[in-house]
């Protein structure tokens, strides 16, 4: 089965099931390389996480994870939050993403990222989210972004 087939079967199942999607993505591509996994979801949010690993470090002196894995996490949680909110897979791509680094992530701590799709228009989905490494009250990053639908949404 090709990557495309895997993705198609995961996303064209009845409704939208984030656990199936993330299990598929886990074995493939950049998110799989980072080890991103599913934590939970609600009506308009999805939470994912990944474990600290030496290969993800962006600053060897401190052991702090690079921003790439965090952005990958938040980008993916955002995409999924759009699909859980709409109840189905809608092709879309990231238009822009802003990350505020509130504090460095602590080495050897699992990073959790929760993103919420708080507004959808015919063309654009607006999302926001926070990442933490153990205490949701002490976030390490705040994210805001927009996605654009590739064809007509509901």
């Amino acid at each position, binding site marked *: 089965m*090709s*990557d*495309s087939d895997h*993705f198609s079967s995961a996303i064209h199942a009845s409704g939208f099931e984030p656990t199936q999607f993330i299990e598929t993505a886990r074995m*493939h*591509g*950049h*998110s799989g*390389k*980072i080890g991103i996994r599913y934590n939970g979801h609600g009506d308009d949010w999805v939470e994912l996480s990944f474990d600290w690993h*030496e*290969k*993800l*470090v*962006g*600053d*060897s*002196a401190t052991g702090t*994870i*690079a*921003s*790439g*894995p965090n*952005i*990958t*996490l938040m*980008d*993916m949680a955002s995409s999924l939050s759009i699909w859980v909110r709409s109840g189905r897979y809608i092709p879309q*791509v*990231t*238009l*822009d*993403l*802003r*990350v*505020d*680094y509130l504090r*460095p992530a602590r080495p050897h701590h699992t990073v959790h990222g929760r993103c919420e799709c708080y507004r959808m228009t015919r063309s654009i989905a607006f999302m926001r989210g926070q990442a933490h490494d153990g205490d949701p009250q002490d976030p390490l990053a705040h994210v805001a972004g927009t996605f654009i639908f590739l064809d007509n949404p509901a």
Partner: protein
Amino acid sequence: MIALPPYADLLGLRRDGERDGMPVLAMDFGRQVLGRPGFLHGGAISGLLEMAAFAASHRSGRGGAVRIKPVNFTVDFMRAGRELPTHAVGHVSRLGKRIANVEAIAWQESPDVPIAAARMNMLLVRG
């Protein structure tokens, strides 16, 4: 130029000359940077842009021990990243005592046709 960190190795980054005096980084297409089938992951593009921004910041440094703490990072995705090598270069638009404002662009076939652009504000901690 400083050594690239482990995450740069995961992305498969390599140095690929200079542009306007700033180091150019290259990233080959492969499963390690794949997003949806056939396209680069936005996170991988962001990681490449961040590394290019850091590289430009280090190149522009005034010397001395400076630790760079990222304050924020904003990326615009302009075109899909296809199954091609991607290049990125940073540019320091202002280097102050405490803050560096840095931009970076990523392209595939031509620097005139960027696939993504980022802005990064960095706090410089000296001493």
